[in-house]
């Protein structure tokens, strides 16, 4: 019963935050509601005892992807009215895509399996680690799909960097190797000179003293 209560609380939170995410005006709030959505779905996965997937969802999406999202959303001055203009024009396409996605999801999950009671799911004991099971499955039966997905991701990363680095480099950077290799003799010249006899005039003395100091040379 506790489990069902927790499920309903988090499902309500999930639906509410997902709805708010697309209706709220401020893009920063939209990003924050998306984070809440990820969180609630992660809690629902935890209820399914899929702790690896649940925590990975938090680590990857909440901890990394959404932080970068927030970064961009906060930095950009997004014009809201321009974004709303095409709403009616794109609505039919949006609805079509939504229906297609709902259909494909229904086909994948198989609607016949839907039931309110979770008795049909086989439960494992507490010492069963689905993390290691997932690892075994990924690196044995699904090795090629996994490797191909990794290669695609790598290509995407390199492409993203290549796209941002197209323009000739204009920023100036320091070379740490040169900084580390610097010797004290490169920066400092010690001038040896004879001690001069102090003059009687006190002003003369201070003038003479200031000459007997080290001279700092500007680095080349």
């Amino acid at each position: 019963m506790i489990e069902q209560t927790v499920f309903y609380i988090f499902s309500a939170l999930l639906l509410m935050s997902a709805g708010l995410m697309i209706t709220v005006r401020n893009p920063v709030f939209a990003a924050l509601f998306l984070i809440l959505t990820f969180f609630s779905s992660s809690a629902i996965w935890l209820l399914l005892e899929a702790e690896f997937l649940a925590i990975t969802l938090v680590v990857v999406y909440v901890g990394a992807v959404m932080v970068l999202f927030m970064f961009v959303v906060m930095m950009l001055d997004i014009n809201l009215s321009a974004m709303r203009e095409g709403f009616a024009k794109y609505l039919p396409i949006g609805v079509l895509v939504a229906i297609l996605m709902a259909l494909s999801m229904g086909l994948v999950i198989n609607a016949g399996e839907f039931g309110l009671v979770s008795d049909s799911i086989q439960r494992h004991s507490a010492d069963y680690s689905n993390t290691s099971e997932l690892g075994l499955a990924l690196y044995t039966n699904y090795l090629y799909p996994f490797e191909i997905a990794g290669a695609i991701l790598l290509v995407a990363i390199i492409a993203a960097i290549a796209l941002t680095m197209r323009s000739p480099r204009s920023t100036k950077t320091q070379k740490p190797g040169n900084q580390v290799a610097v010797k004290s003799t490169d920066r400092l010249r010690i001038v040896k000179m004879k001690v001069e006899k102090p003059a009687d005039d006190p002003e003369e003395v201070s003038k003479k003293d200031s000459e007997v100091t080290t001279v700092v040379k500007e680095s080349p």
Partner: protein
Amino acid sequence: MMEWIRSNLIMPSVEQLFPLAMHAYAALTIEVVLKILVILVPVLFTVAYLTYAERKVIGYIQGRIGPNRVGFFGLSFWGLGQPIADAFKLIFKEIIVPSGSNKALFIIAPVLSFAPSIAAWAVIPFGDTLVLADINAGLLYVLALTSLAVYGVIVAGWASNSKYAFLGAMRSVAQIISYEIAMGFALVGVLVAAGSLNLGDIVNAQSGSVIHWFWLPLLPLAVVYFISGVAETNRAPFDVAEGESEIVAGFHVDYGGMAFSVFFMAEYANMIIIAILTSVMFFGGWLSPLQGILPEAVFEVPGIGILLGEGIHWLLIKTSFFLFMFLWLRATFPRYRYDQIMRLGWKIFIPITIVWLVVASVLVVMNIPPWFA
């Protein structure tokens, strides 16, 4: 009168209100809440006195005395009352919400910063059986929570609607994201070496003697993990996020009173978490450093055997040492330049961890003694 009430009003008994199943839940809930209190009260006490320790340690390193006035019962007691006086001051200070700020987010940001640093304590093993939640994915849970701490900073920086706060938040976020990767890879190294994500199993995998602890086979990872931890908590020398000479105080420049102090407490709680995780993952947790040196019979001696053998006191000693390292670093090193921080994170730490991941895997696969025999 009582009879009348009983007969006329249907008074449900306790059993009717709370069926037996609910009793079990209630008992479990109370037990867990008590356990949480047993962990959290010392943690918050340590947070308070860590600020005192910091001021004293840095004071002595710099040839000063540090706080020495506030004590108890009219006596100074080396200034031990200072954290309590500070707490009183902060509690009674007014929290000013800037008029241009986003009020809801402004108030919620310190909470977002503090909650993950407290929640991470759930999986910390203090002894063989002394752990609140003995979950299989403990290491992942810790990684997830440390990656959440950034939201308090980013939300505070944005909600304040101030340039300094925003710049501080941007610096902090970029830094935390960069060092989180090195930190995650270091944790993967621990996972490879221990063969488990459960923090208790990780400690047990290190049993034997001091040289069996993972600091030796995973030495580069231990160093990278601790330094990344210093960077993650925005502590000196990585404290550009609040660099007072450039951006006043960074993301919490507009916060005052308790709202500020919650950020402050989060920072110190995070320091304790990093220190305790370093000792759990690389320095044998609750295991005794005398194990494998003294004969086993010594640990059986009543009284002194408990002190010399494994126990929570060793974990506390190790944690205190790493906390001292935090203070020591702050008193010793000047602040890094921002490009140096980024270079260290991306170009030095991440390659080191990736290379050592391969080395650790080879050590494990080849069953290299004494660690993986």
